[in-house]
């Protein structure tokens, strides 16, 4: 086991014994949906049906599910290029996400954005940003609007460990803290930036949490592979934000099962590291959790079968969908719908 990828601390109790069965099943269904859809995206890539790049969240499903399930309608998500999971977790239909990855007309943005820019304003997914760190200040602005207008929604900004060393991260944290904005910064620390371990290029052990004190924020590190821990931490951060008590910075320890992007076989990882983390696979952890709470194997299977059926159906829908109409090439550059820059 490399020292770069230690397991999450056991200091946080993992079990939400008070959330009730319905929520618990939602947490599982959401994670399982993300797993199946991401796995399908990878399979479709191997068949050359997903074009361009893609950054999968396989292994990181508990973070997306925990935060999304704890959200209220109207809360806003800001994602990175690794945004499929967060987009799906907000309830965006699977075929719209796969359709975008497959560059079809039924895609979320009809193929104009692609994998790295999934956006569904209707569902509160305010964009996926492919410039590292860019969306942290943007989330601050959305939170500022809520504060200014007295609205109760919270803006949640997801990013990777690599983001913690870029200027916009620090500007945004200070800005949010000074203005007491209702924004939550969620660092998914999967221990690698792209190829380089984050520990090799960062002055502190916990790239996000160890910076919190510099902005007067609480140091929070959690097990990002346990959806119950994530859900509980998220809920208290939402509560704090809605109460006008300002931002939170939460570092979730997790691990991506695949490489950085589709071009990366992740050969830089020490032998055995992936296997070790797979023992703490969030899906596996949560499936066992359901069993502990007395939920029967049949009920769990029913969820899994239903999700697989939906992913299959979405795949078929996308395969049958046409490519984007060519006339959208020049639409929506300006608000008048077109791209005219002169008369």
């Amino acid at each position, binding site marked *: 086991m490399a020292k770069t990828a230690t397991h999450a601390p056991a200091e946080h109790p993992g079990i939400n014994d008070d959330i009730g069965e319905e929520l618990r099943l939602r947490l599982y269904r959401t994670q399982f949906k993300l797993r199946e859809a991401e796995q399908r995206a990878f399979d479709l890539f191997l068949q050359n049906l997903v074009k361009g790049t893609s950054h999968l969240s396989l292994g990181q499903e508990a973070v997306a599910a925990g935060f999304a399930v704890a959200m209220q309608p109207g809360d806003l998500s800001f994602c990175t290029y690794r945004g499929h999971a967060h987009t799906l977790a907000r309830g965006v239909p699977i075929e719209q996400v796969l359709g975008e990855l497959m560059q079809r007309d039924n895609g979320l943005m009809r193929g104009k954005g692609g994998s790295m820019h999934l956006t569904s304003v209707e569902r509160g997914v305010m964009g996926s940003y492919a410039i590292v760190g860019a969306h942290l*200040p943007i989330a601050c*602005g959305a939170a500022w609007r809520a504060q200014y207008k007295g609205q109760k929604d919270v803006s949640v900004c997801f990013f990777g460990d690599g983001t913690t060393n870029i200027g916009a991260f620090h500007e945004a944290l200070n800005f949010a803290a000074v203005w007491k904005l209702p924004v939550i910064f969620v660092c998914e620390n999967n221990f690698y930036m792209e190829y380089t371990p984050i520990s090799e290029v960062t002055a502190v052990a916990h790239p996000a949490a160890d910076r919190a004190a510099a902005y007067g924020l609480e140091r929070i590190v959690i097990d990002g592979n346990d959806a119950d821990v994530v859900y509980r931490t998220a809920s208290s951060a939402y509560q704090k934000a809605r109460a006008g008590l300002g931002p939170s910075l939460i570092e979730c320890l997790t691990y991506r099962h695949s490489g950085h992007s589709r071009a990366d076989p992740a050969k830089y990882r020490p032998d055995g590291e992936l296997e070790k983390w797979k023992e703490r696979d969030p899906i596996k952890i949560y499936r066992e959790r359901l069993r502990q709470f007395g939920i029967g194997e049949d009920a769990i299977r029913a969820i899994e079968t239903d999700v697989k059926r939906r992913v299959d159906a979405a795949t078929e829908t996308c395969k049958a969908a046409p490519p984007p109409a060519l006339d959208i090439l020049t639409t929506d550059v300006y*608000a008048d719908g077109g791209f005219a820059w002169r008369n």
Partner: protein
Amino acid sequence: MAELTYRDAVARGIAQEMARDPDVVFLGEDVAKAGGVFKATVGLLEQFGPLRVRDTPISEQAILGAAMGAAMTGLKPIAEIMFSDFFAVCFDYIANEFGKSRYMTNGQVKCPLVVRTGNGAGSRFGAQHSQSVENWCMMIPGLKVVAPSTPRDVIGLLAAAVRDPDPVIFFEHKSLYPTKGEVPDGEIVDTLGTAKIVRGGGDATILALALMVPRAVQAADKLKAEHGIDCEVVDVRSLVPLDTQTILGSVARTHRLFTVEENPRLCGWGAEIVSIVADEAFYDLDGPPVRITTPHIPLPAADILEDLALPSVERIAERVRRSLAS
């Protein structure tokens, strides 16, 4: 009608829009309590309060990012970047975020914001606080780019920018802040994408922007007085959208084209206009179009060097005279 400085016109323009629409908010470094380093936003904090007029840390990325997030979710922010040279430290928002968000989300994300900035030379501040960078922004799809030359245009174009549904980069010229002009009473709202013929003439068309407009007018007056050459001066005002019809119309009458640009020569805004005229009005021309620009250099601090770098009244007049004589 009252005489107003360009500087006071900025505050009046912002106030006009903030009074009209509670969704208009204003943020930037030293803009509230201090009233701006150029004193262009004095009184706004007192008039509109600390929730709408906000001082920020020296965090240009946070300023522009926050403006964008606010714009995407329903506000109409005006953000100030103190010196336009500082665009380089927050250029991601200008180059990658504002103008691309609508397109790549297939129209879902809207970004109705204004970035005001102090542009241009004349203050002897040296290379990092003096450059004219309007051409940096002109080349980015999805942005609109405006640069007023008079107090009246400051108010009218700022109002148009705030009311525009697209992101607008609003270049104020630092050397114009103390200049004065007549401004009508009451609300002023102009139209983006409209150039203005500020001096009529039949012998040549001179296009200019911001600080170069008064210089072009003075040069035209000098040419008329000393050589009987009658130049038409067009204040381009808006680089995007670009009012090519007014420009082409003027060239069709005068048959000669000159641009007066403060930006460094390479890829300056005049190059694009010359290319349009060459494409579409070549046979209207009686001679080659001429670009009068700052050389391709960083700007020096010393006054005699800075003055030498920028197109001056004498240089503009001499260049036009020489071209028309040949």
